[in-house]
């Protein structure tokens, strides 16, 4: 039989001992758990599978018209342990560590009607995959920033598919010559509209144009459509000859309210197009001529 003192010691030490063992087990489990998070890619995969769909949801939350370029690059630092593979499917993103990971993690975003999200798969090989999201008009393109497939130009604007109903042609035999000389190129086109354009060698604003379609019902929309096609063609033309475009814009104007413009023939609502580049176009043969040809293509595109 235990003495009274011994029973009190047992009463205190016994629970203390058991509590210490229980806490020890909890501590060991926590350490094992934390070690697991650090050693495996589970935590990172979960992070990516949450963060990337959130970014896609945010991109899709943007008002529809506009261009957006989002580089997803938390992997730029060496914090991430693995090169991840990505599968972008409708409403879901699948993350894998490396090319053959069986424990893939899936995250979910919500598509938007009218916006086409490109389905794309990137399998990790050598270089780190850096997802790149490009929203242009009604398309969301997904690319790998370290191995680009999609040529993106932020100055290319989404044009409406409104068809210009009248005839639209570069009139006059010496139109191209006028362009080359940097003179104003004013054309009245088939009674359906008018535009005036000037490519300015040796200046920073290389294209300045007024478009004034004469369709009473949707005059502004028609003008905008022509301006958009010409602007895109000019931007592509400048890109081809290695000239950076700092910005392009077409602005609706009404000469009645703006006073006299440098194009007096512009009547009623119209659109002013300006393309700006910090570089000056000083070589007619290698710079201005290709640009003039590109603009001609833009005019043709507006008709189709």
């Amino acid at each position: 039989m235990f003495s009274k003192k011994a029973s009190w010691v047992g009463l205190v030490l016994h629970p203390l001992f058991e509590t210490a063992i229980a806490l020890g087990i909890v501590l060991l489990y926590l350490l094992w758990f934390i070690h697991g998070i650090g050693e495996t890619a589970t935590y990172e995969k979960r992070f990516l599978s949450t963060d990337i769909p959130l970014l896609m949801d945010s991109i899709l939350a943007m008002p529809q018209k506009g261009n957006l370029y989002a580089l997803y690059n938390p992997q730029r630092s060496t914090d991430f342990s693995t090169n991840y593979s990505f599968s972008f499917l409708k409403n879901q993103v699948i993350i894998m560590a490396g090319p053959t990971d069986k424990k893939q993690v899936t995250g979910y975003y919500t598509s938007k009607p009218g916006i086409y999200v490109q389905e794309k798969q990137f399998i990790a090989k050598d270089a780190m995959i850096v997802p790149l999201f490009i929203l242009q008009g009604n398309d969301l393109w997904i690319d790998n920033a370290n191995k680009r497939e999609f040529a993106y130009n932020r100055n290319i604007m989404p044009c409406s598919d409104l068809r210009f109903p009248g005839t639209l042609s570069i009139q006059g035999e010496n139109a191209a010559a006028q362009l080359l000389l940097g003179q104003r190129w004013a054309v009245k086109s088939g009674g359906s509209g008018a535009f005036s354009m000037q490519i300015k060698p040796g200046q920073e604003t290389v294209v300045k144009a007024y478009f004034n379609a004469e369709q009473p019902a949707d005059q502004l929309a028609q003008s905008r459509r022509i301006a958009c096609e010409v602007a895109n063609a000019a931007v592509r033309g400048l890109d081809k000859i290695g000239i950076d475009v700092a910005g392009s814009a077409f602005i609706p104007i009404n000469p009645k309210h703006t006073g006299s413009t440098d194009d007096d023939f512009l009547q009623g609502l119209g659109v002013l197009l300006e393309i700006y580049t910090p570089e000056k176009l000083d070589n007619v043969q290698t710079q201005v001529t290709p640009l003039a040809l590109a603009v001609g293509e833009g005019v043709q595109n507006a008709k189709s």
Partner: protein
Amino acid sequence: MRNRKAVLAEGVIFWMIYIAMTGVVIFLIRAIPSTVYSQATETFGMENAVLTDRVYNEVAWESPLTQREYIGELPKLSDWDTKRINSAFDTLGAPRQLSFKLTLEGKEAYYDEAFYKRAKPLSPVRYKSFVEKRPVWIVEDKKIATLEIDQVFAPVPPGGMV
């Protein structure tokens, strides 16, 4: 000396409590780290903010002159309809179940009304629910109306189905 039956009964009671308590401890050991871990990565609040913004961006009109979109404005109250919210989401075939009820000046519009009516009474236990109020400028009436955006969705854990 104590009765043999009493000693036996005492042992049975002790082990019953001991085994039950062991079960509780094992459960806590398993559950606590997972709960802390999942709470640290929970993004429901942010998802809600993003999706609510997406709905609100649809409450807009476009100037025919400048093509600028005026978000949070409607030319007139009668322009308010279900088409606006239906053009914000495409959850067809998506594992994430999502529904909205929008109320503007007493006029209601739903996205996935069937799911909303089934899930709303079960939130916030089974489903997540967020309610937010935002101002809408009614141009014709020259007044600010209140748009109530009630969002109910089934949380999808990373890597898992609902």
